[in-house]
């Protein structure tokens, strides 16, 4: 899996349990445990991150995103896949339940 490959919609993304993170005014910051890099998510990316709890699949997260931010489902799905792929490439998501493309 890389940022250039879309994840399957039935994947249930899970935050890397070693990642430290906090939400401040609707925006999430994440400290990468491996390289001490601080990441900042915008509002929609934060929305997705908070739902990457291993319980929802990508399609479900995209549906919630679509409803919350009033974007069409196809756009929401593409954006969700792109973000999660990027987070995975940066090892901010756990390997569990995730298939490398």
């Amino acid at each position, binding site marked *: 899996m890389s940022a250039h490959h879309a994840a399957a919609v039935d994947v249930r993304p899970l935050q890397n349990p070693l990642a*430290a993170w906090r939400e*401040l*005014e609707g925006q999430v910051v994440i400290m990468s445990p491996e*390289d001490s890099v*601080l990441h*900042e998510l*915008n509002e*929609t*990316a934060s929305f997705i991150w908070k739902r990457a709890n291993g319980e929802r699949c990508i399609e479900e997260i995209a549906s919630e995103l679509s409803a919350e931010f009033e974007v069409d489902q196809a756009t929401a799905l593409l954006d969700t896949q792109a*973000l999660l792929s990027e987070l995975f490439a940066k090892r901010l998501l756990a390997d569990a339940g995730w298939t490398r493309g």
Partner: protein
Amino acid sequence: MPGGPVASSVMARLVSKSLQRSVPLNVHLDVTYRCNERCVHCYLDHRDHGEMTTAEIKRVLEELAQAGAFFLTVSGGEIFLRPDLSELLAHARALRFDISLKTNALLVDEARARELKAVGVRRVQVSLYSADPQIHDAVTKIPGSLERTLRGIHLLQQQGLLVKLSCPLMRQNVHAYKGVQALADALGVTYTLDPTITPMLDGDRSVVDSRVDSSELLAVFEDPVFNKRLDPRAAPEQAKPLAAEAPHHAGAGLARAFDNIPCSAGQNNVYISPYGDVYPCVQMPLATGNLRKQSFREIWYGSPQMRRVRDSRESMVQICGGCEIKQYCQRCPGLAQMEDGDMMGPSWRACELAELSARVAGIENPVSAYRQLWDEGKIAGKRAPAVGGLVTIAPLAAAQG
């Protein structure tokens, strides 16, 4: 999708936001004052006056997380003297804190190092006073302590933990800094050298005798190695909707975020003692409340003392306003309080260090505004008092029995 362009620094934006909203982003939590070393410069009373229990600290961590605290430094005393340390760290990690530890690493063994890595501790700062065992052990007063500390560092690094050396500079080790630098290079770790030695929390100034004299410190300041920062990581990455950077790249942006704010104490930084006393900073002995009697929110947002610190601005420090070498000054309001009696006044030690820095920068005979007024006899009685102006000289919980 929403999400405008990202500014230059993730950390600067985070800090700026925390300052605007008074979010306690940085927490320094001492879990014990007990220690297995007896360092000559230490400002702590190592007796146990009633440390918070495991349950109490867990509750405090929960309150801190709710208030938005993120960067948690767990320190002491020696943290590994708390038998519940693993449990506390696991709880903090479950609350998604970014954890740094401060330790002398004497008690680090393979199992403990592995445990720290597994729980998700990100960084371990280890106190080290010299690469020469005679000098280091004379500071700690524990024979063989350097050897044990180095073994601990090795075990931490074996687990892939980020280690940083912390070396306070004092009379006893002032010439050892090059050895510390060489050791850090050999280990592939970062290090800090810091000439700040503070009085003990009970006001006892005997430890201040360990401070390096200005003349001797000048030679250190003139050595470029003193300000070297080792951490050659990649430049900040900029991307949307995710921006990222290594925190140390935030320097200039951070300075702008603070603008007229004297320092982070009580703004986005808080210190909590093993007894639950809350202070704006570990170097500012202004007790603002106790977590056994009040919630963190009550103290952080409601304490008059905390609000007084939070409302202070650098422009209120009248003598310093017109100082010609202000740009070289790193006045610490806490130290100004402890040693000069007023957190919003000048700090004699800061003046000395600013004059040294200015001299190193090529300014001839730099004189701080404070010294100038003193020389003119306009501030008689204010210079480096023997007994500092402590607002509270004992931990609240201990004082209240």
